[in-house]
């Protein structure tokens, strides 16, 4: 499923984040992928993703200049399974 920023996302429950000087490392215990999150603001965005009704609204709090880059980062994180769409039942 491709990334749709109008939908709600959250960190995949099998993903662990480890703070590092440059941001954080994210490791997915399920698919064994390791990803570098190379900005502290991106780490914060990812951590708090589930508190927003959509990825767009989570991005809205960021300065315009960073929004595009971070939207791309989220798309790539969704592609590697690090973040996943929140399903409501």
């Amino acid at each position, binding site marked *: 499923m491709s990334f749709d920023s109008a939908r709600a996302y959250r960190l995949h429950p099998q993903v*662990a984040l*480890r*703070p*590092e*000087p*440059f941001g954080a*490392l994210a*490791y997915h*215990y399920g698919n*064994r992928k*390791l990803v*570098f999150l*190379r*900005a502290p603001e991106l780490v914060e965005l990812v951590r708090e993703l589930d508190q927003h009704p959509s990825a767009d609204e989570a991005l809205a709090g960021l300065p315009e200049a960073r929004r595009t*880059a971070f939207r791309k980062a989220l798309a790539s994180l969704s592609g590697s399974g690090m973040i996943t769409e929140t399903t409501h039942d």
Partner: protein
Amino acid sequence: MTEALTVQLKAGLDAPICLTWELTYSCNLACIHCLSSSGRRDPNELSTAEAMAVIDELAAMSVFYVNVGGGEPTIRPDFFELLDYSVAKGVGVKFSTNGSRIGHTEAARLAGTDYVDVQISVDGATAETNDRVRGEGSFAVARRAMDNLAGAGFGPFKISAVMTRHNVPELDGLAELADGYGAELRLTRLRPSGRGVDSWAELHPTQDQQRELYHWLLERPGVLTGDSFFHLSALGESLPGLNLCGAGRVVCLIDPVGDVYACPFVLHPEFRAGSVRDPGGFESVWRTSELFAGLRQPASAGACASCGSYDACQGGCMAAKFFTGLPLDGPDPECVFGHGADALATVAAGTVPSPGPGHSKPVRLSLSRRR
């Protein structure tokens, strides 16, 4: 997001990404290129309690997984106990084995454990090629372990080969072997470490084979390499992965007696950073050792400075240079432009560092047909 990732990684991380832990020097085989000169168990090996304390520390540092090796790690009577303990603490286990102890029971047990990856070592796609390096009968043993894992429904395990002059012609055969099991293929570079110091000269791939391997890998980005062939990136397009020597920066080794080294291929006093038995434990070795602090400083390119490929190749592998007697700030012995071979010719006999006594069995059985 300004600095290049490699620049940030070179300065070191709060915890390693690629931590190898050799659980024992004991091994039932005597591969002629063994990086740790394994054979005999070291009587000073970490106890079960000490090993568990190390796992506790790794968990606290958020080390996501450890690469467990040896020797043959499954020889330790507490192997499964440590594996379960580690997984329960959230430290995944990726372990390498020669397969000799992966019977039906063990395969079923592994299939039922999350966060464990198994890597079976073979050094060729045929018994003939494999056994000349790993010993008579070792290919059949590895195949039986693969059959057992497949039979137990383990899922995609890994088949791991160290590339040598003899098995480069079998690259396609190795890929077929892996495909036949639905396994992942992992190829790594032969380094002159441990018993490999003696066998490297006759085993390492030729220049032509290095090119062949480079092109083969470029076409198959799905083949795992542990980023070990980055010296080949000097040939053109970079291979996928991190192009840098991670020793002491993102890589390190804990040996069976708890000594911490910069990387699995530099088991030598010069690259020993400390011990997990020291008062501050592993964490303090990783974060405060002088050796690691030095390795995290920007390195000089030395004789490679004038090479247009330095950005891609970074001068290659520190271990390979060290154990062939080359300066650490010059070309890799397998420099694709031949500068290493030229430099090797000038290394004076007797000046090459010795890998030390190691743990080879006193009388090495002649398992291989060495010419």
